[in-house]
């Protein structure tokens, strides 16, 4: 369960104001809203990368707003898988090394077999040693998905995961994300109506504008 209580977030001016919001476990939710409505901020708040200006956020039964930053980092490594529009793969690290990075920061040591297994599951068994620059954008996003899933997180956060892809790749990546998100909570931000159509449950952040 993810719960927001009287949460506000401001930078130079207020961005989000969420008096109350509950997201049940294992729900699959499309998040949308015009630019500037705080979609990425919404995901960062859930992941604990940033703290709300006020209010409380409970994630997986834990009030992350009272946790210290280092505790939130560990919590994020354990419970959250992050997929980005720009993939955010680290150049100079091969596909499998990028996946293993997710493991190192959780346990201090990577499990190569598990990372290879994840890449195989996303269809990149023959691309493990390739650098990100040697992969197509669709393949890069698959590596990013494998990395997000390698620690078997409860919650998958996807920020415009198809924003950089063509229609064919977009559909394929969405199939992959949805197939791996069963049994987990998925919050996926998108502008794309075709992507949002895949979700029966949606959150419009326009509702939470201050």
């Amino acid at each position, binding site marked *: 369960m993810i719960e927001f209580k009287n949460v506000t977030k401001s930078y130079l001016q207020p961005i989000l104001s969420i008096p109350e919001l509950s997201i049940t476990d294992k729900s699959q939710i499309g998040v949308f809203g015009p630019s500037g409505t705080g979609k990425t901020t919404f995901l960062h708040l859930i992941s604990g990368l940033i703290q709300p200006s006020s209010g409380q956020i409970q994630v997986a039964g834990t009030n992350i707003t009272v946790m210290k930053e280092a505790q939130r980092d560990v919590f994020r490594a354990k419970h959250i898988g992050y997929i980005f529009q720009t993939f*955010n793969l680290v150049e100079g690290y091969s596909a499998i090394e990028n996946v293993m990075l997710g493991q190192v920061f959780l346990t201090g040591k990577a499990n190569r077999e598990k990372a290879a297994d994840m890449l195989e599951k996303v269809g990149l068994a023959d691309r493990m040693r390739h650098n990100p620059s040697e992969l197509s954008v669709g393949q890069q996003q698959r590596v990013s998905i494998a990395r997000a899933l390698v620690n078997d997180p409860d919650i998958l956060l996807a920020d415009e995961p198809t924003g950089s892809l063509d229609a064919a790749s977009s559909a394929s990546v969405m199939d992959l994300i949805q197939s791996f998100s069963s049994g987990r909570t998925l919050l996926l931000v998108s502008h794309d109506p075709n992507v949002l159509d895949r979700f029966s449950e949606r959150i419009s952040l326009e509702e939470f504008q201050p």
Partner: protein
Amino acid sequence: MTLFTIVRKNLTKRSLSTSLTILSVAVGVGLVLAVTTIQKQTEDAYRQTSAGFDLILAAKGSAMQTTLNTMYHLETSTGVIPYALYEAALRDPRVEYAYPLYVGDSYRGIRVVGTSESFLRFGEPIKAQSFRLADGRAFSGMFEVVLGSSAANRTGLSIGDTLTISHGLVEVAEGAEAMVHDHLPVIVVGVLEPTGTAHDNVIFTDYKTTTALHSIEFQNHLHADELGHEHSFDEIDVKQLDAVMLRMKNPQAALQLAGLINYPTPDNPFMRMQMARDPFFPFKTVIMAVIPAQQISALLSIVGNAERVLKWVSSFVIVVALLSVLIALYNTMEGRRRDLAIFRTLGARRTTLLWIMMFESSAIVLIGSALGWLGGQLLVSSLAPFLMDSAGIVVRAFQHDSSALLVILLMIGIGILIGMVPGIKAYRNDPVQNLSPI
């Protein structure tokens, strides 16, 4: 993959910059370690060698020249002294050992030192340590020589080999005509173990052999000798030596004897009469007494200044190298903001990023220091023959040296501290602000 793998990958990603930074550290550390090693071993070698003898009696001249000539086989002698002085020293009850020294020949640039057999038996090339034979025996008859360990290595000579030695101390250039005692070949009868002193690089023979090689009377005797009988030391009439080295029973006696020989004779008739009873008094006008320990201290204080300058220059190179580590790492921070932000989204703590940066700088300094140590030792190795020839000292590389370990540990400590500067920048890196592609 572990954090160390991440450190390694980060360094190899910028292999050129990393290599150059490591090289700069290696140069700095190598220079400091080479200077320190040479300085320490030079000082030890000089002090230890001078500790074996209390007094040198030689012809009036430069005390330093005499010390370098007799103890380190450098320079030339200040002149000759009467042989009777050596005989007086042998009879003197204050003297524990007296060793004659007569030098004038060489073999392929290696000095042939004429002395007594007792020098090899009782002489101490370094404090409380006598010469030891690695092979063969000490010279006992005419035209026999014993090789120092380096001399044996350099010449390739071994027991039973004969050699003809040249007049003079300087190696004759190829093609030039040397004055060779080719009618009087000498035979190798022994090889000494290394002592780590200049004595390793000489050929020892009996002073009477040296005399024979230079005695016109003896040469005439040889030409007139048609029967070709065995020659003995009894046929040699030694008249002069280069120096006499003394080991006194009481070190205080060395100071008293030096005073007697070096200071002007007092006008007081009673004191004059007292001094005249000393067996060395008759030689006072032609000889000087040199206390080698005093000369070596003076020499080391002069050389020490140059070494201090070298050490400062080397230390400055190290400081520049450490700054280059800092600059190299700090300059990469701009390009690494996004990578660090990605690490944070994957669960890396701020302190983890700080550690990564500190490990990176430590790895550069550690590898640079290790290479510097190796380079420094190779430098010492390559300079060793030059130091032996020019300064008469044996310097050895790859010896246990706690100061080298201290320098390397200090470097690693500073490396960790240097890593804190980019580390703190990484620590402060805002993941949300830096996630977008740069």
